[in-house]
Structures are given as C-alpha cells and as structure tokens.
C-alpha cells in the first residue's frame, strides 16, 4: 500500500468509523462497568477495525460492524476472565413461552422514576453478559433485532428471547432497588 493509499484509508476510516467513537465508548462502558476496561476495549475495537478496514464492506453499516468487533472482544474478555458466562437454555425459553408471556404492570413505572441512573447502571451491570449485550444494543444503542443478530452471530429468535429475559431481569432488579433492597450482581 503506497502513501496515497494509506492516506485514503485513513481519511475513509475517520469519516466512516471514527464518527462512531462516542457510541462505541458508551457501549463499552455499559458492558464492562469499568472505565479502565472500557477504555481498553474501546481502543482495541478501533485498532482492530483500522487494521482490518479492508474487510469492511463499503456501504454497509459501519456502526454495526464496530459493534461486532466490540462484542467479540468483550465476550472473549469475559471468557478469559475468572467469571464464566452464565449459560441458559435458549430452547427452554421457547418451550416456556418464548418472549413476552408476562405483561408489565404500570405501577412499576412510578417505582422506576424514583431510581437514579446509578441504580440502573448497577442493575444493568448485574445482568449476565449475554443478556447485558442485547439490552445495551437494543435499548441504549437503538440497534434492530437484525443488527443485534448479526453482531452477536445468533438467530433473531435468540436475540428476542435474550432481550426479553434481559429486560425482565433488569426490571426485577430495579424493582428491588426501588423498594429499598439491593440485589447482588450475578455475573461479570
């Protein structure tokens, strides 16, 4: 690659990928719960993206591609850490009714208004990693089911069941907080 090509790659990367820095940083922060780890994850995500920018399909969704890298790095870190991922049986979820058999009650909305952002961060951090990822991507980053399915390399049905379970778990934790209790986090 000549200097002109290098310059072109750099410029294209800045215009296509670096514009998503805030989004990737925020997601890294929500996933890791730790500023130092989030900074490392953020840095590693963009360096990987830059080195493999030639693999990025021009015209496709660069933000989703960056999330894919972020997700892979994050899951890998969790696997390498002393805290294993919490596994749950996806099929069981479907057998049990899949997504959304429980309707939310309205009074909980009032309860949640009493909560501070910090409570929500803590509750989010307490979710199992796989659930946390889909909740962060869907509810905080506004990704579609299809995007999440591609980012996490899993079927859309799995995304839906994880999202449902993630939200239910988050709701349960927040309810506990709002009612004055603190539930311990369950997973990295």
């Amino acid at each position, binding site marked *: *690659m000549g*200097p002109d090509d*290098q310059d072109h*790659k*750099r410029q294209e*990367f800045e215009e296509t990928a670096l514009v998503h*820095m*805030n*989004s990737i*940083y*925020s997601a890294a*922060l929500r996933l890791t719960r730790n500023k130092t780890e989030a*900074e490392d994850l*953020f*840095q590693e995500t*963009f*360096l*990987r993206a*830059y*080195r*493999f920018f*030639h*693999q*990025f*399909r021009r015209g496709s969704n660069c933000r989703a*591609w960056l999330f*894919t*890298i972020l997700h*892979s*790095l994050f899951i*890998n870190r969790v696997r*390498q850490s002393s805290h294993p991922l919490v596994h749950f049986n996806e099929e069981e979820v479907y057998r049990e*009714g*899949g*997504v*959304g*058999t*429980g*309707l*939310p*009650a*309205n009074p*909980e*909305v009032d309860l*949640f208004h009493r*909560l*501070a*952002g910090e409570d*929500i*961060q803590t509750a989010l951090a307490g979710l199992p990693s796989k659930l946390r990822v889909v909740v962060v991507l869907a*509810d*905080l980053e506004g990704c579609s*089911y299809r995007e999440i399915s*591609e980012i996490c*390399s899993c079927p859309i049905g799995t995304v*839906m069941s994880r*999202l*449902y379970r993630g*939200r239910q778990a*988050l709701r349960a934790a927040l309810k506990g907080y709002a009612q004055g209790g603190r539930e311990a986090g369950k997973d990295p």
Partner: protein
Amino acid sequence: MSTDAFARYLQAYCDGELEVWKMLEVEAHLEACPSCRRSVEAERAFREHLRAKITPEPVPPHVEERLISAINDLDRQGRSSAPPRERRRAWSLAVAASVLLLALGGVLGYLMAGRTSRFMPSSMLVQLVGEHVRSTQLERPVELHSGNTQQVAFWLQGRIEHPILVPDYDPMGIQLLGGRVLQLGDRRVASVVYKKEGKMLSLFALHAAGGDLFLIGLHEIRRDGQVFLAVESQGQQMLLWGQGEMLYALVSDVGWDALFECAQVFFDGESSSS
C-alpha cells in the same frame, strides 16, 4: 387476538420490529383492550426511562488522543514497510525463524488463552490442518478433478456461494489437482488441492464477512497493507490472510519460502484479474 397471544408480540411491537400485517393485528387488539394498552405504555415508559437515566458518555479527550496516537503508529508502520519484491525473502525467513512451533494442542491452548487470534476460532484452525493432513492420505483428495483454475474456481464458488480466487501455481512446479467442499460447523469451506513433488498443498477459502472472523495472528506479518498469520502445527505450515470478504488458509509442508511465494502469486493474480 387474545391478551395471552398479544403478550407474545408485546416486545417486538414496542421495538417496532413487527411485520406490518402483524402490527395491524396487534393494534386492532389494542384498540379493544385497555389492559394491553397499559402494558404497552408501561413497556415504552420503561425503555424511555432507561434511555433517559443512562445518558451516553462522550469519549474522554485522553482516550481519544491515545487512540489517534496508536492509529498514527500503525500508519507509520504501514509506510515503512518495504516493497514486497525486494524484501520478500528476508521477510519470509524472518517469519520462518520466529514462527511458533506449536503442537496441535498448543495451537488450541495458545489461541484460547493468548492475547491474539481471539476471533479466529481455534477449532477452525485445527480442523483446517486436520483436513489437509487427511487429504494427503486419501487416494482421491478432490471431488472435482481438474487442472483448470477457472473451472475449479467456478465449481467451488457455485457451492460456497462466494467468488473465490484459484491461483495458477503451475509455473512454480505446483500442479492443481482440483477442488472439494468441506462443511466446518455452519460454514462451507472451499478447498483447492495442489501437489508439488509428492507434497500436497491445500488452499482453503471461506466467507468471513460481517466481522465474524478476523486474521489476528500469533505472528502478524504486514506486507503491502496485507496482514498474514503464520502457524506451524503437526509438521504443517499454515499461512492465513483475508481478501475482501474471504479468508484464505494455505496449508502444506513445502516450507515457508514456497508458501510465501504462493501468497505472492495469489496477490499478483488478484491484481491482474481486477
């Protein structure tokens, strides 16, 4: 639609993910069911509440500076790499000298625990080497027997549904035997089989778009903006690289010099065909 049936669609409805016809069905139910309307309001309020309380945090300046500085370093490394023709031999010898000689289990263990190769499933590396070794033991290692590169490429791309490049190594004394298709997990892998003086070479090609596979190597060798990964396992050398949406792995025991020569021909072929 009953309330029970509606509950199944609540999440997708609030996420705006229902197909139009289903959405209309749900909305018809909502018009008639105050209880489900309250559920929708609660669900939406919960999400809005989450977004409102967890505000996005901008990248701190020192983090952004660190990233830009690291990208600048990568750029400098890229600029300082010498043209391949002049440096190829020194480059390949350096790699050959430094490449990790790993037993099969060692590759697996290193990849699982190592700081690199995180996204290249270690099982896939192991399987590719295994498939190559197995092909050397078969009487008929190919499904399509042909010495015509275009015919083999056409046959394979029809089966893996992605265009692949089948280089012509004939001038190097490497004879094309043909191709076959493997199924590794949920992936179809094209295998092009060559022979050189009794030794076999396998060039594997698999689709790796969407960022699900990366060439992050034990030894990353950059050349002309191209990143290679070199692994030695079971007495076989393996050179991997990405090209477009495809991941290529060349496996043989012909020696590193010959493998790098093959990689060079691959990219020469690519540039002449583009």
